[in-house]
């Protein structure tokens, strides 16, 4: 996001007519998708096999005993979750998460719009939903419906992928506050990378911008997946766990932000070539293609990693630090 003078601005001329139409169509589609999936999540949960947060004994692919968090619980914590369900699953708590994430995202959006204009800002925000919300949902539903994952366990079975245990509004099977959280993280990190390294080219900045949230996630994920929170729940079975989190999570964070930053900064160039409408379509199509490519990449990656660990003599999945 840095220009040649080291400032964080990209010159994009406003096109009020197109921007208004894009805003209307984009926001309406997003609102409809959120309304539809939120209705499905709460009123037709059997359709997407939504795990019941108040009855963990009914969970399947993975069952409660097949989750990573199960092993980290004391007996009293297990008994409590079995009796009361996932912690903090209350309406005020969920409302707070939604409102708080919306507020922070609004601040970021205002900053984004001021520096890059309406079109670029809306592409970033809607792109966040399409890119991360769709990517996470595909991964979640793949695990839930097939009971498997790209992750390959060593000496143990694979029981699915992961899922979010609670949320207010939903985009497919990803809570809206997660999509907004990703938007805030991605924008802030790439912006800071541009400020701290103004002389770097786009790839360098996208790389640093992706490494910052990935490293932060290294500390945040173990807290949010702990028995006290269970915001999201990982299935057992990855051959490499870092602080109890399957390593593909960190790979995913890195690739998503790195690629998104690159595609988003191409928008002005694409607009020059093809005009704003076609550039917008190319941007969203590229995002969908990239997220499918990332998911496809996980399969050979996990297969290769497992073979390397087996060749190195591993009898079971590698845990860093040991015992976690």
């Amino acid at each position, binding site marked *: 996001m840095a220009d040649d003078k080291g400032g964080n601005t990209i010159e994009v001329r406003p096109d009020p007519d197109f921007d208004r139409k894009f805003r209307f169509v984009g926001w309406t589609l997003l609102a409809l998708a959120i309304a539809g999936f939120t209705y499905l999540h709460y009123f037709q949960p059997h359709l997407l096999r939504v795990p019941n947060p108040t009855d963990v004994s009914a969970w399947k692919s993975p069952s409660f005993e097949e989750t990573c968090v199960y092993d980290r619980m*004391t007996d009293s914590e297990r008994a409590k979750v079995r009796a009361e369900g996932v*912690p*903090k699953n209350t309406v005020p708590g969920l409302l707070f998460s939604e409102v708080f994430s919306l507020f922070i995202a609004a601040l970021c959006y205002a900053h984004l719009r001021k520096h890059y204009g309406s079109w670029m800002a809306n592409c970033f925000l809607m792109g966040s939903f399409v890119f991360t919300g769709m990517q996470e949902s595909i991964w979640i539903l793949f695990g839930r419906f097939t009971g498997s994952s790209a992750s390959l366990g060593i000496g143990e079975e694979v029981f699915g992928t992961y899922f979010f245990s609670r949320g207010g509004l939903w985009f497919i099977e990803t809570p809206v506050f997660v999509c907004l959280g990703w938007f805030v993280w991605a924008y802030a990190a790439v912006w*800071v990378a541009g400020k*701290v390294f103004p002389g770097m080219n786009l790839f360098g900045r996208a790389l640093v911008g992706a490494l910052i949230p990935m490293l*932060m996630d290294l500390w945040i994920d*173990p807290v949010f997946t702990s028995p006290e929170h269970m915001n999201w729940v990982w299935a057992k079975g990855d051959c490499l766990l870092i602080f*109890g989190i399957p390593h593909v999570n960190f790979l995913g964070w890195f690739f998503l932000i790195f690629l998104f930053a690159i595609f988003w900064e191409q928008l002005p160039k694409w607009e020059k070539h093809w005009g704003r409408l076609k550039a917008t379509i190319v941007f969203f199509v590229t995002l969908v293609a990239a997220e499918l490519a990332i998911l496809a990449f996980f399969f050979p990656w996990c297969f290769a990693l497992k073979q390397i660990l087996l060749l190195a003599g591993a009898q079971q999945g590698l845990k860093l*630090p040991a015992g*976690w």
Partner: protein
Amino acid sequence: MKQDIPSYDKRFAFVAYGLLFLIILTSTCLHHLQPQMLRVPDNGDPTGWHNPTLDQTVLADGLTGDQRARFLDEGVPNGTDLPVQFAADLFTILLAWFCFVHARRHFGFWMASCFLIGSFVFTGLEETLWILSGRFLGGLADNPLGDTAWGTYWFTRGGCWFLETPIVACLGWFFIAYSCVLTAGKVFPRMGLRARAAVGGLIAVGIDLWMDPVQTAPEVMAWVWGKADFLLLFGIPHYNFLGWFLLIFLFAVIWEKLPEMEERWGRPAATTRFVGIILTLPFGILFFIWAWLFLLGSLLSLLGVDQTLHIPGGW
């Protein structure tokens, strides 16, 4: 960037790094070879811990049955494995070296050395004061809610030590403080010194908020907290975060005043004043936090709070 003054900088480096080396050497020998002098808790035998005992630590409440049995049998993870601990020292020294090179290139040798040595003196002294006051005085006082304060905390592992703080912690503080204050300055270049220092302190607290629960988890146990505080954030006493903010905020302000101090009094006198401030300020912060704990605890008690507050609940 401050111009180097080779004759002074050479003498300063010799004296400052020489003293630092001697303190680290002595503290390390004391810690590993004469642990009874500073009552160093035995990593291999948690049942022998005092102030706090194992059951008086925050950690004890989070252990599963299996973890507790393994812990009592094997002790702190890698707690007696000195090669691993020295390897961690080397890795941290490497990261700190990158930061030092950056600081030297942008601010000159004198300023960079003041930051590095200041990190040891300021944070190492502050942490050691907390650790030893808890270890030697723990259990003597009640917190304002009426619970007995079972000591403060301590670090379990470390190859080399500065007093009772591992050099890994001092160097970690150095590169987190330096990067956060530098990032704050880059992102908000027009902000005044205090505001930038405050943003730098807040970034560091924001990072520590997530790192601390992981580093104190049963599987890592890099440091251990005694039970006592009346307000826990993610299982960590809240004064830890208050301390982080104050340390980085104050240090950044003092360090950035160095050029002004040099202009007024010359480099040797500016260095002496800087060292004097960072040697005395940790005591001031310690008293401030004690007063803060007493006042906030009393306020909560007046409001009817009668047991430790956990944010988020259940942690």
